[in-house]
């Protein structure tokens, strides 16, 4: 537990073209698939790292402090006393959706049937991270089963739990070699990570305060409240160099100092858990997998700035997170960690949960405050900043979930340990949610300053289905889309801003060469456009007109001046909007225009979609050379426009084709092709 963690990413294996990872991804060639993917991947899972034992003795603070960055490898909680074997079923959202609860029940039943109740514990854990393998099951001997079905459980119980031999055919297989990996710590995805904010996520049972305590939970808060001054805490946090992980990257210590110095007896601290980016689920995973870390961070913050009341503003679309957070707060209150006399220090801190209705703009702090106050979630102009006049007009401090989850670790391990990680002005680690056409979709925490290449290829395992990397959308709809040429960009606030993208909250959507960049930009713009609060003109109307322009381009009606119009609109929307939602909304369009302009030009000038995705610009045809006349496509065609004799090449009647792509997907001989461009209608 004391190995020093490398702060720099290893550029080890870059596994390419793994065989079909069983991720729930749609293969439809439309913009919807970006949505489908991000939504699917957005469901995090809890990776039960190593099993741990309830009631284990808490590790002492000095001990953990001595082993700072080792958490990635150090996710095991040593069992106490008995040698009970532990099976941890991931209960992150993605795994739950993939059926992990059925797997859990199957384990309980089978273990009982095998008479192993006395020796084996079956538990649930928060998101384990590797969502593309969901449902995930890990055992206390570090073996890792991905994509497990309830019917497989009997085999596992029989061979592994009874027989002591992991079921090799069900273990995770290295995508590059195809060899099973027994110890999940050896999986590239995990090996490359440095987990601080996620230190307990996927390790402990999130609904058990004892397991949290066993991992050193609340120790930092106890120390702070009983032994330290607010000034000490603020200095410590400032020294660590941590910056807001919600996207803007404002130094947390400075923010706390503002709120601390702001005059007034009544102050508030708010945890912003209104994570709304499509494709981002870091905050969700932390709340689901380790709610106490956030509560502890809030408690420390409340003491530092002088707030006796706090709110967690969490979106109601995270029911699991809400449920676990509610229980965690109740548990903490019961033990006296929260309430009128926290840790017997005399410090009073009440924490409330406020459910958001899912408006993206409520992640903006002034809109969030308005929402808590019961008003329409609309931003207002700053200044005054919330640190001066926030909730109910009182000084208010707002931090992101991930930021708060880092605080106890910083207190425990020292500011130096934290600032030792990361790049120049971006210290520490950052959690990313990897989604899209990537082998290892899931939750990954790496030191800042790692390169994109490292995250996508080393951690993420490269592009799915052996396709080529085309671009990565960073920071969700507010972020930018970067091409392969920028893969060696260091992930820190300044370097990414220079490219036109942002770190943002950490969403990372990877796309392959089959994605149309106009379509991608449109997808993200459509999201922000729908989520605009409607208050200021450039955002309310400007994004709408941008979207209409993109629609026009994709429909083949693009005009030469449209690209300039898009740039002009983007420029003035960024320059003039009231809040960051509008101010960043054009980023996907601007960056795709910057790095993939030729693709836009192909749409406008040649009426051609190079990726073959824009329906108005493509036609399907069957290559007579490749067609074997198997008739499958004809059978599957929903509009019955494919004709042909058995064992003779088939033909698509373009007039009736609705371009649903079904024929291309079902064809086993790759005979259905797409044609795009001005000449598309001339041929057939």
């Amino acid at each position, binding site marked *: 537990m004391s190995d020093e963690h490398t702060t720099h990413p290893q550029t080890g294996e870059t596994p390419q073209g793994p065989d079909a990872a069983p991720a729930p991804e749609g293969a439809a060639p439309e913009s919807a698939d970006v949505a489908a993917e991000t939504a699917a991947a957005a469901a995090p899972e809890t990776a039960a790292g190593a099993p741990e034992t309830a009631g284990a003795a808490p590790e002492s603070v000095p001990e953990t402090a001595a082993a700072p960055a080792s958490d990635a490898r150090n996710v095991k909680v040593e069992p106490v006393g008995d040698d009970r074997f532990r099976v941890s079923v991931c209960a992150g959202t993605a795994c739950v959706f993939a059926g992990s609860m059925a797997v859990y029940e199957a384990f309980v039943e089978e273990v009982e049937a095998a008479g192993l109740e006395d020796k084996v514990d079956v538990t649930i854990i928060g998101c384990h991270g590797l969502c593309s393998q969901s449902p995930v099951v890990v055992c206390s001997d570090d073996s890792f089963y991905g994509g497990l079905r309830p019917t497989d459980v009997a085999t596992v119980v029989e061979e592994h739990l009874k027989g002591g031999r992991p079921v090799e055919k069900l273990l995770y297989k290295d995508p590059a070699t195809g060899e099973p990996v027994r110890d999940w710590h050896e999986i590239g995805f995990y090996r490359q990570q440095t987990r601080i904010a996620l230190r307990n996520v996927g390790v402990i049972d999130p609904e058990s305060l004892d397991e949290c305590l066993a991992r050193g939970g609340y120790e930092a808060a106890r120390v702070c409240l009983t032994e330290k001054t607010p000034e000490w805490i603020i200095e410590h946090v400032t020294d660590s160099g941590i910056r807001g992980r919600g996207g803007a990257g404002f130094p947390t210590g400075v923010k706390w100092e503002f709120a601390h110095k702001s005059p007034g007896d009544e102050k508030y601290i708010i945890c912003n858990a209104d994570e709304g980016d499509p494709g981002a689920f870091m905050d969700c995973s932390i709340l689901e997998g380790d709610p106490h870390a956030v509560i502890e961070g809030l408690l420390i913050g409340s003491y530092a700035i002088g707030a006796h009341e706090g709110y967690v503003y969490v979106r109601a679309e995270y029911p699991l997170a809400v449920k676990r957070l509610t229980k965690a707060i109740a548990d903490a209150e019961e033990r006296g960690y929260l309430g009128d006399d926290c840790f017997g220090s005399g410090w009073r801190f009440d924490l409330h949960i406020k459910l958001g209705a899912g*408006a993206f703009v409520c992640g903006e702090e002034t809109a969030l405050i308005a929402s808590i106050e019961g008003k*329409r979630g*609309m931003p*207002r*102009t700053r*200044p005054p900043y919330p640190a001066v006049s926030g909730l109910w007009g009182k000084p208010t401090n707002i931090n992101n979930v991930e930021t708060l989850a880092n605080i106890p670790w910083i207190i425990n391990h020292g500011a130096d340990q934290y600032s030792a990680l990361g790049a120049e002005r971006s210290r520490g680690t950052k959690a990313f949610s990897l989604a899209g056409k990537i082998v290892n979709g899931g939750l990954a925490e790496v030191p800042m300053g790692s390169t994109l290449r490292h995250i996508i290829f080393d951690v993420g395992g490269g592009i799915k289905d052996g396709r080529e990397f085309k671009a990565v959308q960073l920071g969700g709809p507010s972020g930018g889309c970067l091409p392969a040429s920028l893969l060696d960009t260091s992930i820190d606030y300044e370097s990414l801003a220079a490219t036109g993208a942002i770190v943002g909250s950490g969403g990372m959507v990877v796309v392959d060469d089959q994605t149309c960049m106009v379509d991608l930009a449109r997808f993200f713009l459509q999201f922000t*456009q*729908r*989520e*605009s*609060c*409607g*208050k*200021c*003109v*450039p955002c*309310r*109307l*400007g*994004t*709408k*007109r941008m979207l*209409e322009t993109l629609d026009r381009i994709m429909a083949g009606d693009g005009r030469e001046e449209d690209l300039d*119009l898009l740039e*002009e*609109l983007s420029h*003035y929307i*960024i*320059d*003039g*909007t*009231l809040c960051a939602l509008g*101010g960043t909304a054009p980023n996907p369009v601007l960056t795709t225009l910057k790095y993939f302009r030729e693709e836009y030009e192909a749409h406008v000038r040649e009426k051609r979609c190079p990726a073959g995705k824009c329906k108005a610009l493509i036609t399907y045809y069957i290559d007579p050379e490749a067609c074997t006349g198997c008739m499958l496509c004809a059978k599957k065609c929903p509009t019955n426009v494919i004709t042909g004799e058995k064992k003779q090449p088939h033909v698509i009647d373009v007039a009736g084709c609705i371009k649903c792509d079904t024929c291309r997907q079902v064809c086993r001989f790759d005979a259905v092709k797409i044609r795009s461009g001005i000449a598309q209608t001339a041929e057939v």
Partner: protein
Amino acid sequence: MATTADDLTAKQTVRPDQVTLTIDDQEVVCELGETILEAAQRVGIHIPTLCYEPRLPATAACRICMVEVEGARKTLPSCSTVATEGMVVRTNTDRVRAMRHLYLELLLSDHNSFCTPPCRDACPTHIKIPQFLEYIAHRDYKNGVRKLREDLPFPAVLGRVCPRPCEGPCRRQLVEHPITICWLHRFMADQCIDEEQEGELLLPVEPKPDSGKRIAIVGGGPAGLACAFYARLEGHAVKIFEAMPKTGGMLRYGIPSYRLPRDLLEKELNVLWRLGVELQTEARLGVDYQLEELFEQGFDAVFLAMGAFNSNDMRIEGEDADGVVTAVDFLGELELTGDVHVGDKVTVIGGGFTAMDACRTSIRKGAREVTCLYRRSRKEMPAHHTEVDEAEEEGVKLELLVAPVRVLTDAANKVTGIEMQRMELGEPDASGRRRPVPVEGSEFVVECDQVISAIGQYPKLDGTSEEQGVKRTKWRTIEVDDFTFQTADPRVFAGGDCVLGAQTVIQAIAQGKKAAWSIDAFLRGEDMAAVSASLRELKATPFFHALSAKNDLDPRIQRMAEIPPVFIDMTTDVSHPSPPAEMPKLSPEERKTNFKQIELGFSEEEAVRGADLCLDCYCPANGTCDLQRYSIEYEVFKNRFHGGAAHDYEADFRHDFIMREPNRCINCGRCVRVCRLEVGSSCYDNMGRGYDTIVSTADNMPLQMVGCVSCGKCAETCPTGSIVTNPRRLESYDLDESRCMFCGECVEVCPYDALEQTEFFELAGFSRTTLAGQSLYAREPRPLDPLRETLPDLVPHVRDAVLGQGWTWDPIKDDPVDLEAFARGDGGNGDGAGGDGDGAGGDGKAAAKPAEGKAAEEEG
């Protein structure tokens, strides 16, 4: 301006609670905490804004007031950015101007409304089209005629003969055909005309009392008749001198009766005679009387409107042959004598209305063959296309792109034919039409025994001379001032065809109307040169500046000003096609042998439906709208987002006083804040999200159900025409004294301070004894309630709690009441408190008076 401000700042000593900043290179000293916008306003620098409301905290939603601040990466909203020491602000750079332009484009791209209708501007006399159509849609024809007569005295006549310039630009064409404006006002006038003969005259205003001035009008054609009508309404005595046996001018002697039945003309002109206009017929200027004699007879002004009865010569060989007539003579003779000679084969030269009239009259009078020869193509024909179509239906042959070369005659100088030459169209001429160019060697002969020339007329100016001050132009018309219609003789005015040359009836009427107003100004003793100069200046002024300049002008001169509208490019969603009814007509067979009226008129259902199709493309805020003002200032005449999606909301007429038209809403939120923070009602908020955000009431409920107090402050603050006040129907409110318990709540909540607490009012609560018998009540004192007498004194009810919460209105600020004195029972506001009762009744009444009807009268 700049120097003054500079001087001011130079002299000022800057206090510690002040900051100094630079706005557009001008040093400005402002109070600590003031915003850039407020600081700029101090020194007269105008920063455009739509959502800023001085009484309320800034919201910075419209982003129009963005300015550049040195050192700031992005532009900043001046309405909410507090000025700081040493700040350097630029309010009018290329960057912010381009930004404002773009934002205005965006706002207009979802502005499903229009400022002003093009039809009204296209009409020479600017009849109020959407308004009278509204009356038709409500089947209120009498008020419709009254509205129409504000600009056009003869709706029934013009409904038959007008070339309808208004219908060309009608916006209904965005969906389908234009509204049949002309036929609709014909229908409306027809409904009233018979009743009006004996009954009440449908006048736009009550005629003013007799002014004692007399006006002589030379010529009883459209211009003279219109002038007579409007001059009479101003209270002047009017006498028309008509050369012909009957009035009407070209209406009677130029337009055939199948287009304008004579009995109808008589009926419509009857309004003049019933108004007291005098008439002398067969009185020819220069023959039966002289211009000077009119002044000797005591007339104070003369209006020359003798029309254009001289026909242009064809200037070709054989023009004087037997069988060659002018259309004016031809049609006039028919009207005068009831008959006219018509040849067997008739050739009509020309393509205007008169030519068509001559063709179709010839057909009706038995000509076997009628050919119409015109030198340009059909598209260029000045006659209305329906006239041409109808003529063809009746058998008239069109020969286009030909010009006459000479008239062929026989030995007896009788017409046998006409030699024509083919033409082709060349470059457009000054009129914008393509000039006909002869094709050499293309001459051919058309056989005929009668040639009717209809190639234009010019005025017959007998009896006037340059020496008398009636100067001529090079087009043989009378020279007048463009704005006052005054000739060189200040007492003599002229208008209609004798000034315009042969033009349309509606143009003549427009001139008659404006001339009447000008003569009125002259008779009131206005300096006509100054009037002309100010109107000329006004016309040259940009639209919005012209509107504000107008406020300085006498309304009676204002009405002579014609400020051309500026059309802004906005996206509108016009849908639901519903073609207008076709006017039923006689078939060609039924009509070509007689002079029956061809167009039969609409049925009521057709007319009401036709009027209902009007898009009402006008806005009550036209001219006061900030969005319009800035759009014009930033020249948003071409919108790059035109044609994008636009919302189509329903207007809300459910409230008695306040009309909401969400299509004009720009979501500035001023009404939201005023209603919440100033009135305390909170009727409005933003509803919906994103692009669909719109200011409305909760669940779009009617205002009266969401706590509206009908104060109209929302309408007052609305920068566009989205919320407007309806004209109030109530004159005053009544107070039911049997129920009033003098709580004073009404006084306190009234947003306009329209109710006052009289000294007695405030006293009411606690000391009835002192008030007994002293007109506590508005009407008459009531006997005391013996029970109440025994009650302890009550403390006056002042809502401190409410006032403490940001209410801006202080009920006792203006007239402080010594509450302690009251409590002691010795009266508050001086001795008069319980004293003299004489004024009390009146005061009580005042307290019960309503808010002054602030309702803007609907703008035309």
